[in-house]
């Protein structure tokens, strides 16, 4: 097992390297560069092509691509991620803050989605084709049938504007630094987020539970006189974990990828919005660094999932 993990960690290095090369290539291929972003027609007053060229020169954008990449890589290896060209802020600090925010909201959202999703999945599996099964499936699907942006607007309109239960977006009330205020801001977006993700976990759990509940060893567990809860959880659910674990593993990177549409409508400064803004402004230091962190999370999540497979099912061997 540990030999396998070490090999996977060693393999991660070339993969991360390749990710950074690919991201750099993608940014290069995308039309226009960060200086073009500055030349936004709205605020063009007083800038000439010569100014733009001077800026391009100063940012080193005229150097050939490999040189720029190696320059960036050199910096990263010494822990210097450089400055965001748009937000005039060190990339390290910027990412730390935005990742933190995303982890908070996505963490709560996904946690609620996983716990409710799985328990509802089991509940509906035990009552297949009952009225409860139908209604819960119907409600869970409402979540994934609407663009996240619209779901966000509706939630804000109903719960903030009409009912006034929650603040309308943002992360904190200006000047207030209490946990209570922060949570008060987090509840609504995290809830919308969890509703959107809950359907996923619910369906996968339900499907795999339906599969497992038919197995002989579940009958044996009942024949052994074990309480229903243990029969369902220890015997049935544990055997149905593989697809569920796969989906949880797949959603771990979302902790850092964030949810751009939700963050936009809830004006929540998370990673999704930052990544989106950086891509459309070609702010390559931020894009490169963000992608590196996302890649690390993806590799970690996939490794955890694979190890979890072996832990869950002894028959799976990690070679």
């Amino acid at each position, binding site marked *: 097992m540990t030999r396998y993990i070490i090999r996977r960690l060693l393999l991660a290095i070339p993969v991360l390297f390749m990710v950074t090369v690919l991201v750099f290539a993608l940014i290069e291929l*995308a*039309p*226009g*560069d*960060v200086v*073009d*972003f*500055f*030349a*936004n*027609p*709205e*605020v*063009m*007053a*007083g*800038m*000439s*092509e*010569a*100014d733009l060229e*001077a*800026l391009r020169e100063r940012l080193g954008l005229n150097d050939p691509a490999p040189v720029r990449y190696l320059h960036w890589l050199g910096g990263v290896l010494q822990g210097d991620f450089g*400055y965001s*060209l*748009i*937000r*005039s*802020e*060190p990339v390290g600090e*910027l990412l730390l*803050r*935005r990742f933190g925010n995303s982890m908070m909201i996505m963490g709560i959202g996904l946690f609620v989605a996983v716990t409710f999703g799985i328990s509802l999945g089991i509940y509906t599996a035990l009552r297949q084709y009952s009225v409860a099964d139908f209604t819960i499936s119907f409600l869970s699907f409402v979540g994934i049938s609407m663009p996240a942006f619209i779901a966000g*607007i509706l939630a*804000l*309109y109903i719960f*903030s*504007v009409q009912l*006034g239960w929650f*603040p*309308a*977006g*943002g*992360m*904190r009330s*200006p*000047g207030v630094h209490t946990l209570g205020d922060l949570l008060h801001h987090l509840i609504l977006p995290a809830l919308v987020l969890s509703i959107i993700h809950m359907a996923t976990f619910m369906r996968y759990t339900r499907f795999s539970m339906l599969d497992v509940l038919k197995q002989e060893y579940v009958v044996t567990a009942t024949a052994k006189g074990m309480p229903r809860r243990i029969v369902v959880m220890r015997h049935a659910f544990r055997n149905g974990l593989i697809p569920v674990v796969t989906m949880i593993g797949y959603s771990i990177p979302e902790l850092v990828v964030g949810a751009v549409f939700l*963050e*936009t*409508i*809830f*004006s929540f*400064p998370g990673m999704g*919005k930052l990544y989106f*803004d950086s*891509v*459309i*402004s*070609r702010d390559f230091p931020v894009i490169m660094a963000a992608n590196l962190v996302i890649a690390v999370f993806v590799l970690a999540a996939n490794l955890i999932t694979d190890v979890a497979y072996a832990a869950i099912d002894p028959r799976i061997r990690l070679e």
Partner: protein
Amino acid sequence: MSPLHGNAGGTALGRKLLATTAVALTLGLAGPALAGGSLVTALDMGPGGDEDARPWSSGAGHTTHVKQFITPTIFNEDLSEIVPYAVESWASNDDHTVWTYTLRDGLLWSDGTPMTANDWAFTAEFMTAPDWGGDRPGDRNLSLSEVAGFDAKTAGEADSLDGIEVIDDRTIRFTLSAPNPRHFASLFRFYILPEHAVDFEPADFMTTDWFRDPSRFVGSGPFVVAEYAPDEYMTLAANENYFQGRPALDELVIRYFGGDQTAALLALEADDIDFTYVTETDVPSLEDDYDIFSNLSGVVVMTRFNYNLVDDAFSDIRVRQAILHAIDRDAITENILGGTYVSIPCPIPYADLWPEDVVTYGYDPDRAASLLQEAGVDPGSISMEWVGHAGYDNTAHNSALQAVQAYLSQIGINDFSYRFVDIPTFRASYSPDGDWQNQYHGFGVPRFGNDVGRLWSNGGALGTGVTGYDYDADGFAEAVAAISAAPTIDDYNAALGDFCRLHAEMLPDLQMWVGNRFGAADPSIENFWWQPAPAGGPYQDNAHTWAVQ
């Protein structure tokens, strides 16, 4: 303040709407202005805003900058003229090449230090340092490029600006490299920085956090930075030493919404904030609960299709005239753009400047068809592919474009597609070698200011110097030159009129409509004032008089 002077003409509804806002304002609730309290706003929301900016760099966000720093001159309340602000008076020699400015008496920085002409000179030298780190030199060029020695200083050949000379604590003299009858009109974005408090180098201009760190920040505007939460909000505290008196508010909070207007509007309706920029389609449903602000004089957003004239399909003027005749612009502005837009005959968005005899192209599909026949062009062969940037990807503009599409297909032009893309892609869609697509975009043109040249340049609005026009008709360059050299305001307006007439005849690009931009404020705020100034102003909004009940 003459409410309707110089306002865009056009449809009755457009005029009616603008009139009502004026009336709502003059009434102004009479209640006593209570001192203290906090006002939470989304001041820098909307196309003119920039939520993360610092003065002298982003070319936008001036509504916030002017809260922190004062400028020598500034737009008046309805942006119809540029008036003195930090300066008391100015004088120029007869050929307008030497200008002498006198600061008001008793100006103080927020830390009590007196503001002198030395601060002004220091700022000029600081901003023209060869290694100045600012990312967008727009404001700097606007404020200083006319000063003698600017090119030498910025190129590093000289270590100081020849054209700047401090006479005494309150007087400074500018020597220009070329005559400018309205040099004072180039200083409305010259944010003077405190020489004694600026502890960072010009090269670190973009990376310093001086502008956001309450312990190091020293300003001269009505407010000073009290707290900055990146991506969330900036809290400004009252500046005791503001020369127009301590503001009524204790605190002015500017909340950031990542540029999303819907998020800001929801916050307004949930009473979390008291003011925000709103899109034109939302105005009708907000009118009765909120005070609606919109531009009274220099109307703001002019939208147009830029032709790629290199593409010979459009080189024949009759084709361009046919296209304009084919589109019922009044019906679109009246019904689809919600009546807050008016169609325009030329790129001058001020109706009072349109000459009586300007050529206009009313909706006349038959005329359009016959023009195409005359030009021997088969409408089916015309391919129009428009690119716009995401700033215009909203219901109003999307609907308007689809309406244009429908009208054009009625005269046989079916190959019409458009898409909104991000700004770098939008800019990259224009390439000097001429194979660029046509562009649909709008931009604000201040009534005054030296970049009038932008009025007729296109090519992705690259500003002066680069024009997409390979249009060799004479008369354009002279018309623009006449505008910038016009000594008096009447000559200035007349020159604009001539340009408008010439443009309407030549039709180098397709002028569509001009609309207003709107802000909605909670009625409980007193003396509040906001204008969708072109590219954010700055203008006199008397923030020190704002008060909450």
